[in-house]
């Protein structure tokens, strides 16, 4: 049971950081449905670099850099070219899924490095995740930078008139967001499950995307949701630890996805949206054109 809880929190860390990164981008008005793709890039490049150099630090750094570059690419399409953000995100995801399958394939198999040491029985990244949540909350709600980010996500025209550089603020958010997605991917491939196989995320990024919708765009609710889904995910992988012999292990794997749909439906009901729907950034998914 203890082992299960520890693994759940490890899993929740990946959801936390991935979803937080998406939240940051969405708060500035940029939707990236390609979280999974950026995470795949981070996970694969991080894995390759760590294995080649023998250094976790290099692996994580490479993942963050590649994530930032992909974030920049999404920003270029979405902010500068003003193209449809859903199409762009889909492109990022399919690019990630397609290209990492090819470039990572020679690295198929275990990482073969000594595991990253625990901190109080937990992955050190768990604490990084908590810290990032607190920092994100502080920046978003207690600093002028956060006010800028939120205002370009709500009403970019008004923000621009009041002297905020919408383009620059959105780029900042989207690139930072990409870096965090790459980081989340690296945690998966270097710490949580250090064995590379193609398309090995199997839905983490998409659940992270859904978590942002559940979070009302607030970091603390997001943390709660991530911990819940971390436990759920872990349960679906190792049901025998908690509930032995109820369903086939394959059917267990469907549970987090089914619950995501259920939660998403609940969120979309009128009952829910009239009470808490206002949290959604007004300008989400809309390109901004000056003048």
């Amino acid at each position, binding site marked *: 049971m203890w082992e299960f809880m520890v693994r759940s929190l490890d899993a929740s860390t990946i959801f936390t950081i991935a979803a937080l990164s998406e939240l940051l981008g969405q708060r500035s008005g940029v939707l990236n449905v390609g979280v999974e793709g950026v995470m795949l890039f981070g996970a694969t490049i991080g894995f390759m670099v760590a294995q080649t150099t023998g250094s976790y630090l290099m692996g994580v750094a490479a993942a963050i850099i590649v994530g930032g570059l992909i974030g920049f690419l999404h920003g270029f399409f979405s902010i500068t070219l003003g193209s449809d953000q859903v199409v762009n995100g889909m492109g990022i995801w399919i*690019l990630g899924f*397609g290209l990492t399958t090819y470039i990572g394939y020679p690295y198929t198999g275990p990482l073969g490095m000594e595991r990253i040491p625990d901190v109080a029985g937990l992955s050190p990244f768990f604490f990084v995740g908590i810290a990032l949540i607190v920092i994100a909350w502080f920046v978003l709600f207690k600093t002028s930078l956060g006010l800028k980010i939120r205002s370009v996500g709500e009403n970019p025209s008004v923000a621009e008139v009041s002297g905020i550089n919408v383009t620059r603020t959105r780029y900042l958010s989207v690139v930072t967001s990409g870096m965090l997605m790459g980081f989340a991917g690296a945690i998966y491939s270097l710490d949580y499950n250090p064995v590379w196989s193609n398309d090995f995320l199997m839905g983490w990024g998409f659940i992270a995307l*859904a978590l942002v919708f559940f979070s009302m765009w607030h970091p603390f609710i997001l943390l709660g949701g991530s911990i819940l889904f971390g436990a759920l995910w872990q349960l679906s992988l190792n049901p025998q630890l908690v509930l032995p012999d109820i369903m*086939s292990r394959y*059917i267990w794997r*469907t549970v987090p*996805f089914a619950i995501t749909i259920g939660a*998403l*439906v609940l969120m*979309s009901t009128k009952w829910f949206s009239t009470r808490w729907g206002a949290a959604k950034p007004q300008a989400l998914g809309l390109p901004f054109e000056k003048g």
Partner: protein
Amino acid sequence: MKLGNYEVKLEKRVTLRGWEAAVISIFAILFAMAVFSIIFIRAGVDPLTGYKEIFSYAFLSPFGLPLTINRFVFLLLCTYSFIIPKKAGLWNIGTTGQLYAGALSAFAVAFAFGAKTSQSATLSAGLVIPLMMIAAILGGAAIGAITGFLKGRFNTNEIVVTMMLNFITYWVVARLIKEGGLFMGASGEGDGFKLPESIYAPLIKDVPFTIFIALGLAALLYFLFARTRIGYQIKAFGLNPAAAKYAGISPFKIPLLVFIMGGLMAGLAGYHYFAAVPGLYRITKNYGEFGDLAFYGIICGLISQGDPLAAIPIALLFGGLTNGGRFAQGKLKLGFGIDYALLGVLMITLVAFQFFYRYKIVWAKTRKESSNVGIHG
């Protein structure tokens, strides 16, 4: 930007003509193939040789061509599955899950007729094959309907829902074909059971009859969107759901309808690949790769701008590229995943090129200052 006496400017397009979209698409595909050459060069292969291998195997080889055509039929059906909801402004990323459901339903029918018991069982092809196809269509449509219903009733994000359903159906297939599942094959190597020869889909020159259905559907869909009331309603909803509502178009029925239709096409694709393509006739253990291949439907749909007739040559091209890519990968020792890498490169190139659907580059002769003289006196 100025070049000599000419000025290069970006101008917003008011309309996009069919031929303009076609030109942009051709440039996008060529550009992607040029970028993709890097992968050949990295592997020490001359890109021209690489492409020659791919195309000659895909379209000229007696072994490769039937495989290309099988993929073409599959991709074309996947493309329909994507473009029908897209006409209504909705994203069907769930072709994969819908085609798994279609394949499972088709095999459930075969199973019910005792197909699992013996490879030599003689079943009535005239009865079982149509029933398998109907089941595939219903299975795909049922999964599609979930998304359509949730979108229509609650406005639930269809991208997340279809993606979740992909994962759910993926694991349901695993449950059924692996580890003692109902549809497990006799070999015990993780494949599903093989259909008896008596219900192999009829072939016409090595090509399953499903090709005629796929081509016929192109004409039918073209007619649907060009000439019928319901096609018009779908398009109107896609352009502006709010305005469509005032015109009496149901914001519930349209999403439901387009996802049922999309799922139906995907279900048929599932039947085609697992039950009609020679050499398979079973849900293989690597069914996930066919599910992944379905994502080419998105690319074909985006390039063809939702035109079912334009989708035909594009699906043929990609059927050939993916098939030939697999071959070249083995022959030129390029490493696994060439077709995946191409998928990624094509997709991101298209994303970049969609800019040109909205803007065009114009060359204008710069006016000399003196031409203003008349105004200023």
